[in-house]
């Protein structure tokens, strides 16, 4: 069965390693913060200028000067640092952030990603997404494998305006974990109860299936 948003977030959190600096995009990526394994520590970077983002505040802690990149009120953990936007994107662009997790409309076999613009709809802007995909060492894209009409979001070539080129190496969808390399999607894991055939059917770009594909584990 396809994963819930929470389950995608849980699977994403399994990628994190002790000591990782991580930037989480809005939506499912943000949920991943709730599922960091108990035996590791990670630190969250918010691109408006906060390293060591904590949970949302209590009413007592509420402070208009403490927000995250989604403009939501947040707190800072002990040992956090706060800095200006040029410094924040120096970290991102310079490859100091270990992981970026973000959503997408489309990803293709070249590792291209489209996530910010749908022509003929109102365009709000890319925010920090282009800097994040250009800068992070590891990028994980989270999204549903197909749109509501059943159209695959894993394409031979993106059709929408791009956010970045040749930058996506790992995708976690509601159906599968995939690696992007050699101009193909390599299937690594299946959602519990989802068949390779279903994944193949919903993957428009070339899918490579090597050996037995294990189910994701949420132990």
């Amino acid at each position, binding site marked *: 069965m396809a994963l819930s948003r929470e389950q995608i977030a849980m699977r994403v959190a399994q990628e994190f390693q002790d000591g990782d600096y991580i930037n989480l995009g809005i939506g499912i990526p943000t949920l991943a913060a709730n599922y960091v394994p108990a035996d590791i520590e990670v630190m969250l970077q*918010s*691109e*408006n*200028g*906060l390293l060591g983002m904590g*949970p*949302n*505040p*209590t*009413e007592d*802690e*509420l*402070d*208009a*000067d*403490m*927000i*995250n990149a*989604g*403009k*939501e*009120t*947040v707190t*800072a953990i002990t040992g956090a640092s*706060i*800095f*200006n*936007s*040029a410094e*924040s*994107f120096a970290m*991102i*662009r310079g490859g100091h952030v270990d992981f970026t997790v973000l959503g997408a409309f489309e990803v293709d076999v070249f590792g*291209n990603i489209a996530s910010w*613009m749908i022509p003929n709809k*109102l*365009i*709000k*802007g*890319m*925010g*920090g*997404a*282009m*800097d994040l995909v*250009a*800068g992070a060492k590891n990028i994980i894209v989270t999204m549903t494998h197909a749109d509501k009409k059943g159209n695959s979001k894993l394409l031979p070539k993106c059709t929408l*305006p*791009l*956010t*970045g*080129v*040749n930058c996506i190496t790992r995708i976690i969808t509601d159906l599968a974990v995939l690696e992007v390399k050699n101009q193909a999607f390599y299937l690594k894991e299946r959602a519990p109860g989802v068949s390779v055939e279903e994944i193949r059917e919903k993957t428009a770009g070339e899918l490579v299936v090597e050996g037995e594909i294990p189910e994701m584990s949420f132990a």
Partner: protein
Amino acid sequence: MAGFDKVVSSYAEAMAGLTDNMTIIAGGFGLCGIPEGLIKQIKNMQTKGLTIVSNNCGVDDFGLGILLEDKQVKKMVSSYVGENALFEQQLLNGELEVELTPQGTLAEKMRAAGAGIPAFYTATGYGTPVGEGKEVKEFNGRPYILEESIMGDFAIVKAYKADRFGNCIYRHTAQNFNPMAATAGKITVVEVEEIVEPGELDPSQIHTPGIYVDRVIQGSFEKRIERKVLAK
């Protein structure tokens, strides 16, 4: 002898010299750390044809959004816009132009302007609509695009504390674009929560040295929260 006393006593003085068709660099991220009173003063002045360089454009009745009401803004250079209905309407009517710029590139364009760097290479935006028409050069086998700096006739900045020399510090994430904006104005105006005596700010902890600042004004702030989210 005025020396280095940059404190002005009215918003009119603070924004004196602003005229139609000028470019304004503005600090702030969303509604956080915005020079509320300076924005209101620009509205009061009814200056038209403005180009505003700011990460966002406020909301319908607050922040830079209030400059849309009387169509004072010709162009926004921003990374993320459209948090308000009027913006959307003017954009669709062709009354407002938007130059979408990646957030990190925008911050660096301001910093570069202040630092005398006319252009820099970045991988951000290469191969996307942002890179179209821009010079491309490879370094270590990776392609980068050339981005030019962006300078304002005015920069409007919101600080937490400042002294009369113009030395500023910012509070928490209200820092955001403010320090870069402060360096990128031909005239830089800082609206501040508290004016302190020179020497009260630790010299090594000053975020914006006074050399970048032309005018300081004591502000009063509503500090509206755009998305109040509390712990569950």
